[in-house]
């Protein structure tokens, strides 16, 4: 594999992590740590394959995946905001519940254990002409560019502005930073939290659609393989800032792309796979020590 192709696959592998991380980031800014990204991603992938096969349209499939994710996210949010559930446990429970429901449907409706292959699944199109492949360095990456990757990066680019300078961004930040105050000035802070959790579900659903429709066109129970948690790792690592989080996502995506190569060099893939988690652990310690210093001075 040449360097150009490594870049291309790194970008492709970054997209689902980036989408889910942006959703989770918005959610955390409003004060909810979303452990259930994985569940919504998995549900999104499942819905995307079914709808894509039924309609032959990647747009409808992606939209359906996003809406399925948003619906799950909204219900999940209600359990936290209206019924006082602990968000961590509810998130872990959601992951188990959704995996259970999907597995059940898979084996009952489709009589298959683990994998769903359907006919005529429309994959994500390439938006740029394939002639670009011969551009040096970024050629293959450009030629492989799909609409959801573009959307992911556009979202990343727009998010700092949305959070900093729009009304809804202000509401979200106010809810997360000072929920008492947000309430006292008349903001519906629970509704805002529900909205952001639905957002997180929306983007995680899209992430799932990307995983399912970018090249394989099938669903597998292990398709997400912890990417929801990598996304969580990314916005913790990026301290909820869109641009830094995007860098973390790119790093994790590149790591995943390089994994196959490093394996050939004799490095154990299982250990390389733990690197994102180790990095978050280190980042967590560094951030906590800094915060302590700040508060003690």
């Amino acid at each position: 594999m040449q360097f150009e192709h490594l870049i291309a696959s790194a970008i492709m592998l970054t997209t689902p992590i980036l989408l889910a991380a942006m959703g989770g980031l918005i959610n955390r800014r409003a004060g909810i740590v979303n452990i259930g990204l994985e569940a919504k991603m998995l549900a999104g992938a499942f819905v995307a394959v079914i709808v894509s096969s039924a309609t032959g349209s990647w747009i409808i499939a992606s939209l359906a995946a996003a809406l399925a994710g948003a619906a799950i996210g909204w219900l999940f949010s209600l359990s936290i905001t209206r019924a006082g559930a602990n968000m961590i446990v509810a998130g872990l429970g959601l992951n188990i519940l959704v995996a259970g429901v999907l597995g059940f449907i898979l084996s009952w409706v489709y009589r298959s254990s683990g994998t769903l292959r359907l006919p005529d699944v429309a994959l994500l199109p390439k938006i740029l002409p394939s002639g670009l492949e011969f551009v040096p360095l970024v050629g293959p990456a450009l030629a492989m560019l799909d609409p959801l990757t573009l959307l992911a990066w556009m979202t990343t680019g727009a998010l700092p502005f949305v959070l900093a300078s729009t009304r809804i961004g202000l509401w979200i930040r106010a809810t997360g930073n000072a929920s008492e105050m947000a309430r006292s000035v008349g903001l519906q802070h629970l509704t805002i939290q529900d909205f952001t959790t639905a957002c997180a579900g929306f983007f995680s659903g899209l992430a799932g659609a990307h995983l399912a429709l970018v090249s394989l066109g099938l669903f597998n129970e292990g398709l997400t393989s912890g990417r929801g948690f990598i996304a969580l790792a990314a916005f913790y690592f990026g301290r909820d800032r869109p641009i830094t989080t995007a860098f973390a996502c790119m790093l994790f995506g590149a790591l995943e792309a390089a994994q196959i190569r490093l394996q050939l060099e004799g490095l154990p893939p299982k250990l390389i796979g733990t690197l994102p988690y180790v990095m978050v652990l280190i980042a967590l310690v560094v951030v906590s020590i800094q915060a302590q210093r700040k508060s003690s001075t």
Partner: protein
Amino acid sequence: MVNVLVRSLDIVLPLLVAFSIAAIVLLTIGENPVEILTLMATEAFGNVRRFAATLSASTPLLFTAVATAICFRSGVFNVGVDGAFVLGGLAAIFIAFKLPASLGAGLIPLAFIAAAVTGGFWLWLPGVLLAKYEADEVVSTLMLNFIAAGISGYLVNGPLLSPQSGNNVTPLIHETAELERLMPPSTLHAGFIIGLLCIIAYWIWCRNTPSGFEGAVVGQNPRFARAVGISVPAIIILVMVFSGVIAGFGGASHGLGQMHRFSDGFSPGYGFTGMAVALLARNHPIGILFGAVLFGALASAGTTIQLFSNIPLDLVNIIQGTVMIFAVIEAARLMKNRRRQTHAV
């Protein structure tokens, strides 16, 4: 009186909702829920052999639920029991196949000690990070689970790979290191009794020791705890290490009693099922025993149901996930007081 009612509702509600959802799922696929659930109950408790299978399936959960409860009752949100279980199990199995078989049954205590040290160290780490630097324990323990899976996956595919077999497994442990089967041919083994001892030890620790009392105070009101001179950081580290030791014991028991070797998928999420048990039991030892048996019954009956009536085993996951979500929903809040705001973790 009202308080007692609300508290029992807290325990009954999650089960009620979970089984209602299971019933709805069964209705949707055209099965009679009463029939299937009765069948499951018979499969789980119908005769001595089946009951033994249920207890066997509940054995790992006794450990992981106690390990979770130790931390939860002190307000420490440790979700890393699964990782400590896996690495503890691997350490025990390593001792039990690596050391000479001539050590005989002496291998068993050595293996348990290795598991306890490994598990204890593994959760000591996030304990110190939380106590010293206030590093969020949810994130650190969550990450440590993945790291534990990576390390064990690497070891069983590389340095500890069995030379005789293909992928992902260590050699079998020496027969002398196997925990005794209590009721052959069922797989129920002496680990169940060790699990019961852990529950009793946890109970005694909660009720009769200073650190157990201090742990409860820290859980209920950390500011008060600090005010009366309890060292909150010391308690945090202590409960984390205890949790790791018990989780390690669980791994050792599962390894020496059930699996007899380490393979990928050593824990199909025992740590998280244990969490569901601890939440349902509200950290109470008796509740943990019943909760573990309930989830053991679901797992063992679920497998049979899948075989005989084609109903996917995933039904068990649906029930478990629902129990977890509804176990943390504040039932009382649903009925009244809708204006109170949520607290961030």
